[in-house]
C-alpha cells in the first residue's frame, strides 16, 4: 500500500496551552492545593498568637511587636538570630516545595508523564508548565498567608503601623520570588523523579533557606546573597522599595531560566519512567 500522510506541526502555544489547561484543572481539583492554602493561612495566625518569651517573673513577651513582621522582617536579615526574624512569608516557599513535590510525584506515579511524552509535548513544555503552576500556587499561598497573618494580628491586638508602600513592595517581591522557587522545586523533582522521598526532602531542605542562612552567618549581611533565591526573598522586607521588586524580579527570572534549562536537559537526556 503506497499512501502519503500529512502531519500538522503543533506550535509551542498549542502545546503549552493544552498542558497548562490540564495542570490547572488538576490543581483546582486536588485537595492538596486547598489544604496548603489553609495551612498558609493558619501558620502565621498560630505563630503570631502562640509565640512569646517568658520572663523569670512569668510575664510573656510576644516575639512580634507588629502584625506585619509576620509578613517580612524589618530589615533584610540573612543570618537569623531569632525565630521572629525567620518565621515570615518565606515559609510559604517551604509549603510550596512540598506541594510541588506531591504534584509532580503524582504525575510520575500515575503514569501521566509516560502518557504525556508519547504525544507531542516537549520536555521544556513540562518544565514551563509545572513552574507556572507552582508559581501560581505559591502566589495564592502568599495571599492566604497575608490574610491569615492580618486577621490574627487584629485578633491578638498587634500594632498595624507600617509604611504601606514598603509593605506592598515586600509582598510583591515575595510573590515574584515564587517563580524562582517554583522552578527550583520543579527541577529538584525532575532530578529525583524516581525517588519521591528525596524529592520532597530536598525541596523542604532548600526551601528553608538553610544554606544561605549558613553562608549569611559567616559572611554577614552581604547584598551578594541577593543573587540567590532565599537571599532575594529575605531582601523583600518591611523597608523595601521599588528597587527590591526589581532585584526580586531579576533574581527570580534568572533562576527560573537556569533551572528550566537544566531541568529540560535532564529530562531530554534521560529515559522516561
Amino acid at each position, binding site marked *: 500500500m*503506497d499512501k502519503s*500522510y500529512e502531519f500538522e506541526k*503543533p506550535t509551542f502555544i498549542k502545546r503549552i496551552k493544552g498542558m497548562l489547561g*490540564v495542570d490547572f*484543572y488538576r490543581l483546582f481539583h486536588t485537595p492538596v492545593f486547598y489544604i496548603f492554602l489553609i495551612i498558609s493561612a493558619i501558620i502565621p495566625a498560630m505563630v503570631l498568637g502562640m509565640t512569646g518569651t517568658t520572663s523569670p517573673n512569668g510575664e510573656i513577651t510576644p516575639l512580634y511587636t507588629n502584625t506585619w513582621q509576620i509578613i517580612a522582617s524589618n530589615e533584610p536579615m540573612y543570618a537569623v538570630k531569632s525565630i521572629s526574624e525567620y518565621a515570615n512569608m518565606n515559609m510559604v516557599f517551604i509549603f510550596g516545595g512540598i506541594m510541588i513535590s506531591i504534584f509532580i510525584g503524582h504525575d510520575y506515579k500515575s503514569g501521566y508523564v509516560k*502518557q504525556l511524552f*508519547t504525544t507531542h509535548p516537549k520536555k521544556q513544555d513540562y518544565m514551563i508548565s509545572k513552574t507556572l503552576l507552582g508559581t501560581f500556587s505559591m502566589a495564592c499561598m502568599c495571599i492566604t498567608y497575608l490574610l491569615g497573618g492580618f486577621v490574627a494580628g487584629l485578633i491578638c491586638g498587634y500594632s498595624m503601623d507600617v509604611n504601606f508602600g514598603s509593605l506592598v513592595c515586600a509582598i510583591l517581591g515575595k510573590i515574584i520570588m515564587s517563580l524562582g522557587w517554583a522552578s527550583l522545586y520543579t527541577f529538584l523533582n525532575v532530578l529525583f523523579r524516581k525517588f519521591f522521598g528525596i524529592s520532597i526532602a530536598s525541596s523542604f531542605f532548600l526551601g528553608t533557606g538553610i544554606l544561605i542562612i549558613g553562608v549569611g552567618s559567616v559572611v554577614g549581611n552581604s547584598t551578594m546573597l541577593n543573587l540567590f533565591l532565599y537571599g532575594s526573598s529575605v531582601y523583600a522586607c518591611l523597608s523595601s522599595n521599588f528597587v527590591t521588586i526589581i532585584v526580586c524580579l531579576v533574581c527570580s527570572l534568572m533562576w527560573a531560566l537556569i533551572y528550566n534549562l537544566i531541568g529540560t536537559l535532564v529530562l531530554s537526556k534521560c529515559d*522516561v519512567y
Partner: protein
Amino acid sequence: MNAIEIRGLNKSFGEKKALSEFNMTVPVGSIYGFIGENGSGKSTTEKIICGLIKHNGGSIKLFDRDYLDDDVKAKIGVLIESPGCFPNMSVWNNLMLQASNLDIKDKKGEVKRVLSLVRMEGSASNKYKNCSLGMKQRVGIAMALLGNPKLLVLDEPINGLDADGMRIMREVLLDLSKSGITILISSHILGELEKIATHYGIIRGGKMLIEMTDSELSKSCRTFIKLKANNQDTKMVLLQKYSEIKVDENDYIRVYDREECENIVTYLYENGILVSEIKEDKISLEEFYIDLMEERVNNGI
C-alpha cells in the same frame, strides 16, 4: 510506505544488551503481532518507538519520517503497560484531560467518539479506579485514539482480560484496523493474536528472528491429521506401538505423517477401538512459535 521501519537498532541498559541490530518493518494498515518471551525486548522496542527511552544506535522511521518529529509523534497513539490515568477522576475527565493536552478543539465530541469506538459510552462517569481491568485497558486504547492517530502502539493490551473482555478488544482492534489505523500489538496470548494479526514479528534476545504475513505463517505451519476415538484406553494402546504419539488437550491424536495415519487407524481397529472423527488441521501460531524457539535453542542460537 511502511508505518514503522527500524534498521540496526541497538539498546543497552548498562552491560545488558536489550536490542542488538534489531530490524522491523510494519506496513501501513497492518495489525502487526509482535511476539517474544519476557525480556526479549518487545517493550523496549515499543518504548523506543514512542520516544520514552533512547536508543544507542540505528534508525527508526515512522511513515518515512524521523520518529521524533513533533508532528509525527502527534499522530501516534500509545498504550504501554497501563494507561496513564488519574485513579480518582472519572473516565470522562481522564479522557478530557488528555484531549486538552493534545489541544483538540471539539474535546467533548472527540471523547464521545473514542468512547464509542471502545464501546464504553455507558461507563464514562465511572471513576477510573473502579473500572475492571478490561475497562481500564479500553480506556487506555480510547486515550491512545484521541486526536485520530495513524499508528497505535499497544503493549500487552489483552493480558489479564476475561473471555468477554478479549472478544470486545478483538472487535475494537479489527474495527480500528478497518478504518485504516496501523496497529503494532505485543502479546503473550498468541491464540488471540492469531485471530487479528495480518503480520507477525518474532523477537528473541533482542533480535528479530522472523517477520512474516499471516499467509506466510499459514504456509509455514505444519499440517497434521487429527483423530478422535471415544475410548479411554486409546492413548495407552497407541503408546505400545507408537512411542512418540501426540495427544492434544482435547484428546485428539495428532499424526503428522499422512501415510502413517492409515496404519494407526488400522492398528486401533485391530485393538477394538473405533475412530469417530478424522480431520486435517495445522499447528497454531503458539505451536509454531514454540517449535521455532525449540529449534533455535537446539541450534544454540
